[in-house]
C-alpha cells in the first residue's frame, strides 16, 4: 500500500512538474521562414588570416550569416487580439555542437520583433505587443558565431518560439 502511494505521489509530482513547465514556458507556436522554410548557411572563418597574436578563440571562430529573411510566427486563435509576449527558446542541445558551449546567436530585426542575442539554454524575449491577427512577422537577419573547438559537424539551430498572454 505504501508503495502504491509512493508511486502515485511520484507520478503526481511528475505530472505537476510538467504542467508547471508548460505554464512557465508558454505555448510553443509555429514559426516559418518565408519563402523557404529552412535556411542553409555556409560557415566561414572569422579570421581569414589567423595570427599568432590573435586570441585563439578568434582564430577558431566560425561565422554564418543570413540576409534579412522574413520570419512568420503563427499566433493561435486564443491569443489573437490580446497583448502577448513571445520568447525565443534556444534548446540546450544543438545538433552539430558538442555540449552547450561555443554557440552564440545574434539577430537584428526591422523593429517589430526585438533584436538580441542568445546562447543554448537561454530564453529571450522576442516580441511584446498586441497580436492583432493570426500572424506576426518581421524581417530578421541572424548571425551564428560558433567556436569550432566545439563543432563536430553541420550545425542546426532550431529555436522554439513560445507565446504567452501578457
Amino acid at each position, binding site marked *: *500500500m505504501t508503495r502504491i502511494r509512493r508511486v*502515485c505521489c511520484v507520478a503526481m509530482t511528475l505530472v505537476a512538474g510538467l504542467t508547471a513547465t*508548460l505554464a512557465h514556458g508558454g505555448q510553443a507556436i509555429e514559426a516559418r521562414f518565408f519563402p523557404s522554410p529552412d535556411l542553409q548557411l555556409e*560557415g566561414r*572563418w572569422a579570421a581569414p588570416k589567423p595570427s599568432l597574436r590573435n586570441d585563439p578563440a578568434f582564430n577558431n571562430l566560425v561565422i554564418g550569416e543570413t540576409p534579412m529573411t522574413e520570419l512568420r510566427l503563427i499566433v493561435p486563435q486564443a491569443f489573437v487580439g490580446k497583448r502577448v509576449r513571445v520568447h525565443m527558446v534556444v534548446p540546450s542541445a544543438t545538433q552539430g555542437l558538442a555540449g552547450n558551449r561555443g554557440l552564440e546567436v545574434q539577430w537584428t530585426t526591422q523593429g517589430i520583433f526585438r533584436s538580441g542575442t542568445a546562447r543554448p539554454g537561454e530564453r529571450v524575449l522576442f516580441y511584446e505587443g498586441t497580436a492583432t491577427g493570426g500572424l506576426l512577422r518581421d524581417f530578421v537577419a541572424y548571425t551564428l558565431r560558433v567556436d*569550432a573547438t566545439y563543432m563536430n559537424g553541420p550545425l542546426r*539551430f532550431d529555436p*522554439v*518560439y513560445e507565446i504567452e498572454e501578457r
Partner: protein
Amino acid sequence: MTRESVGLKRGEHRALGCDAAVFVAVCAVITYSAGAQAASLGLNPPPGNLILVVGPEATPSAAGPVSVTFTLTAPQIGTGQIDGSPVVQIEMVGRRPPSGPNFTAELRANAPAFVTSGGNQIPISDFSWTSVALAGASYPQVIPSGVFAAGGGIQLIDTLSVVGGPTRTTGGALTFHYANSAIYPAGSYGPTAITYTAVWVP
C-alpha cells in the same frame, strides 16, 4: 503470505497504472512541442585551410616579398656574423575543418645554391636564421632556428601537427645572418629569392 502476495500484485498493477498515466502525460508534451514547427537554420562548417604569412615583423601582412639586406663595410669583411634587416615574421596556420581529419603541415624553403654577384658566388649555406617567439604570441610552437642547406633546394623548416583543436599555428620572428667567415670579392650580391611554402600533408 498469500494475502501479501495478492496485495503486492494489486499494488504493482496500480503502480503500472500510474506509470501509464505519466507516460501519457509525457507523450502529450512531446506531441505538443513537435506540433509547433520551428524556423530552422543550418550551418555547414567551413573547409579547412592552410595559411602562410611572411613579411616584415612590423607589418607582416604587407603585400609582396620582404627583402632582407646585409651590409658590410670593408673593416667588417671576414670578421664574423652579420645580421640582416629587417626581422621577418613567418606564421603558418593550419585549420582543420570541424569534424574533419587531422593533418600535418610542412613549412618548406626553396633556396638557390648561391648568392651571386656577376661570376662571384657566396654559398647559401653561409646564411642562417635565429627564430624567437613573436611578442604576444599565444601559441607555444616556434619555428626552429637553422641554416640553409649547402647546395640549396627544398628544405624542411618546420612541421605542424593539426590535431585535436581546429587551429594550430607555428611561427617566429626570424633574424637572418650572414656567416661572414670567408672573404669574397667585393660587390653587390643578390638579390636572391628564397621561397617559403606551406604544404598540406594528409
